[in-house]
């Protein structure tokens, strides 16, 4: 992004009309002298975000480096091609446990006690985790402690030993986490909604007490050895260092790490045919929590820009969105309500509308949610589209809040084969979205007649029967 446009030219029309209207009416003088917002003028912002340096070590390990000398601190993170999508169906939880135990199970050169003592005495941190599609090992350290920090960081990445007693501890903690995951209605609702959408596909699977019990120390050793290989790893380095020195140091540490091809098991495509359904999980007390929606899109979809604008108008922009206005602000039915457009990287994500209200207004809220999906397919006002575009473009600066964030963005793009200029071209692509585009994508990608609806709440107290939305069935969390 070369320069932030001066959006004073683009203040939406209705604001001007309204404020002029006010000035003409000449109302009671407020305290202080407040110009109309539309009369304010702003200097343009000239700013070019820093570009990280890209290097590749001989074994294929990719480095992105960005110096930042404001504070004597260095952050390093390794993003790896590994994920829960590759774990066997009877060992769900293996990826996540492998990720955390790489750090907490000790390494060839450091017992876990030594590692904890050393890092914490320096005020440094090394953490490791594995998610659905990628793994992270990250470190934050003061510049003066870089050498010590790097030795531990590299060991966690390359030579974890998964000590048996630490494997046992991690498994017991995971099982306790499973026992506790139904304590919070919103978490139940989001998790069970994903299961309803994805079924047995890896995106919808979740760990069970049995699947955790099935996991052995050897499984973790194998999982790590299989997927942590130089060509599958991107290192992001930001902070108070000199690039050439850092590259030299990292080559020394990592150059004897042999590259090897990784055979990734095939991940099945997300099933496209999903029948609509109405589901209720009975839970007494408090609110009724609603999640409804269907499959969404992929990150590389050319319509993603128009979809982002559409979602901003519908329910993705807090108080400014239609869902918030109608359900919260006008009617006082909810504290939180909104929509999210999860764009999946490898495969389709989910489109969700979610909110919470008292059980006595549960179906009223669901009806309003569905009505809003239909309404946005029929009409959007030009000023709504303009306001959404302004908001997305003008807040784009905040995606660059730190040098490590910039490095992480570049790694994300390369990791997912997205163009390197993705960030730079993003505001321009949003700017070109038209009202017609928004209407078209609302019609094409929203399916108010093919929804999966899930309510967690006290069904006895609902204002009307859920059957008005289709045949309702009662399900229980965690059950197949």
């Amino acid at each position, binding site marked *: 992004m070369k320069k*932030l446009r001066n*959006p004073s030219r683009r*203040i*939406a029309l209705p604001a001007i009309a309204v*404020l002029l209207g*006010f000035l003409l009416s000449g*109302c009671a003088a*407020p*305290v*202080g002298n407040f110009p*109309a*917002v539309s009369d*304010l003028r*702003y200097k343009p*912002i000239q700013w070019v975000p820093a570009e990280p340096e890209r290097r590749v070590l001989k074994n294929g390990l990719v480095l992105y480096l960005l110096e930042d000398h*404001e*504070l*004597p*601190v260095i952050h390093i993170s390794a993003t790896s091609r590994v994920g829960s999508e590759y774990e066997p169906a009877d060992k769900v939880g293996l990826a996540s446990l492998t990720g955390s135990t790489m750090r*907490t199970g000790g390494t060839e050169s450091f017992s876990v006690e030594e590692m*904890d*003592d050393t890092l*914490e*005495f320096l*005020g440094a941190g090394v953490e490791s985790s594995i998610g659905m599609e990628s793994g992270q090992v990250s470190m934050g350290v*003061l510049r003066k402690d870089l050498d010590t920090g790097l030795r531990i960081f590299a060991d966690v990445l390359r030579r974890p030993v998964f000590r048996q007693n630490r494997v046992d*501890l991690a498994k017991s*903690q995971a099982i*306790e986490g499973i026992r*506790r995951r139904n*304590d*919070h209605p919103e978490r139940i609702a989001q998790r069970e909604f994903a299961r309803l959408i994805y079924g047995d596909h890896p995106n919808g699977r979740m760990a069970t007490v049995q699947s955790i019990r099935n996991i052995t120390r050897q499984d973790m050793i194998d999982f790590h050895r299989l997927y942590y290989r130089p060509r599958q790893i991107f290192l992001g380095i930001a902070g108070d260092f000199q690039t050439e020195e850092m590259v030299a140091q990292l080559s020394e540490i990592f150059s004897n790490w042999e590259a090897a091809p990784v055979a990734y098991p095939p991940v099945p495509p997300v099933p496209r045919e999903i029948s609509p359904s109405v589901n209720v999980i009975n*839970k*007494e*007390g*408090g*609110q009724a*929590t609603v999640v409804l929606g269907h499959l969404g899109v992929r990150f590389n979809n050319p319509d993603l820009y128009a979809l982002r604008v559409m979602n901003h108008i519908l329910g993705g*922009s*807090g*108080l*400014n969105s239609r869902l*918030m206005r109608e359900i919260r*602000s*006008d*009617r*006082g*039915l*909810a*504290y939180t309500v909104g929509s999210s457009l999860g764009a999946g990287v490898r495969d389709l994500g989910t489109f969700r509308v979610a909110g*919470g*209200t*008292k059980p006595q207004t549960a179906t009223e809220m669901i009806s309003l949610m569905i009505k809003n999906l239909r309404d946005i397919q029929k009409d959007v006002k030009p000023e709504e589209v303009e306001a959404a575009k*302004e*908001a997305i473009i*003008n*807040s784009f*600066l*905040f995606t660059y*809040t730190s040098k490590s964030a910039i490095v992480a963005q570049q790694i994300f793009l390369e990791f997912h084969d997205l163009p390197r200029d993705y960030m730079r071209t993003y505001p321009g692509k949003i700017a070109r979205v038209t009202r017609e585009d928004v209407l078209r994508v609302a019609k094409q990608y929203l399916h108010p007649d093919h929804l999966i609806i899930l309510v967690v709440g006290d069904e006895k107290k609902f204002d009307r029967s859920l059957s008005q939305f289709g045949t309702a069935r009662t399900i229980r969390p965690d059950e197949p």
Partner: protein
Amino acid sequence: MALSRIRFTAVFLLGFLWTQAAMAQDLQDRVIEHRLKNDLTLLLLERHELPTVATNIRIKAGGVDELPGSTGLAHMVEHMLFKGTKTIGTRDYQKEQALLEKIQTVGNALDQAERKGKAEEISLLKTEFQKAQEEHRKLVIKDEFARIYSENGGVGYNASTSKDVTTYVVNLPANRLELWARLEADRMANPVLREFYSERDVVLEERRRGVESVGASRLYLEFLATSFLAHPYRLPVIGWESDVRSLTPQKLSKFLETYYVPNNTVISIVGDIDPKEVIALVERYFGPIPAGPPPPSLIVEEPPQKGERRVQVLFDAESSLYIGYHKPNIPSREDYVFDVIDALLSDGRTSRLYRSLVDEKKIAYSVSTSSGTPGARYPNLFVLRAAPRSPHTTRELEKGIYAEIDKLQSELVTPRELQKIRNRLEASFLMGLNSNSGLANQLTYFQTIAGDWRYILNHRRILGTVTPEEIREVARKYLTPENRTVAELLRPKTDNGTKP
């Protein structure tokens, strides 16, 4: 928006230290302090990494400043300040005024009728009320503050209410600072309490979501209500349901007049700024707002505790535990000693409670501590929170925790352990300097609570002087059975004795 901060986190108590680093070393000289004639305090810090600014407005008013029967008032005020001014959020304020008065009169009558349960009167009033509201809606521009900020690239536009303070924040592109000054000065000077009744329903939903749906929140609420007898720290910021239902615009106006005055406000701006320009801007917009009389001070003092208090909450959730001990607040020397105890017990994997309860005895799923709960303006609590790992119970956890407290009272902390704590606080301070909004938050918080933002700088120097003997002494004096309150969250027993 509008978090009522009933979560359990010691957000402010870790890691505000003076260090060797350039940025930190300079903080003393780089923060610019400016006081307006109306006694509004302005704190500025230049950071030119990115062409953005973080703004933070802190009002010294929160849950503790409410009167009995009006709990939830400070939080409701915070919600209502999103509704606009005489020039924001309205198509015609003059026309609106008469309607607002009518809605208020009918609304009050309706509230009273509903409390008395007079069905016929309720139905008549409801019709009248809805008609007036519909008419009023035509004059409202919905959520205009939010829309203007959003269109101008604002992010993180939000507010929160705690027991001690109310905070309004937004981050903006640096060239939009005048927009911020124009909107925020207007918000302070000319708030209009429109759409009050629907917003009151929103707050009731917020309460249902936050307190009634989540066992841990309900436990925290009862834990505080048991720990304090007299002091308003016992009351929930979100309010008791019956209190919230009976809040009126009149009560809110009075609160606004009393507390939302420049002499009770601290503002910080951190980021890509020219301090001279910013001072001129703030003078221009906030300068004309008249100072008010000094807000009243709280007279009530919590009587010393005379024996352990216990409370149980039965809820459809896995068990957990709070233990709290009364202690002095800022600027007491003992408050600093508790910051060290806090870190010793639960900061990191090598902390005493984590090692003992999670790693070794394997009876805890999680354990944490906080010093300065639920606020810092008045004497407060040192709090331990833990969740047992099945099949262990909250009682076993309690025993494990008391064993570690015994150790604090009998053995001296080693110099290396103390050094570790200092190092960790220093490093986390340095890493935290990277955040404009974090810095802005600390500046107004400590200026408001400690009376001087330099608390941030002095904190490490003072912590560095805390001795092992002092830690033992403070532990012996305060961490006693007579001074503690224990709250347990337990699952109600069902007929067949298992969980439902």
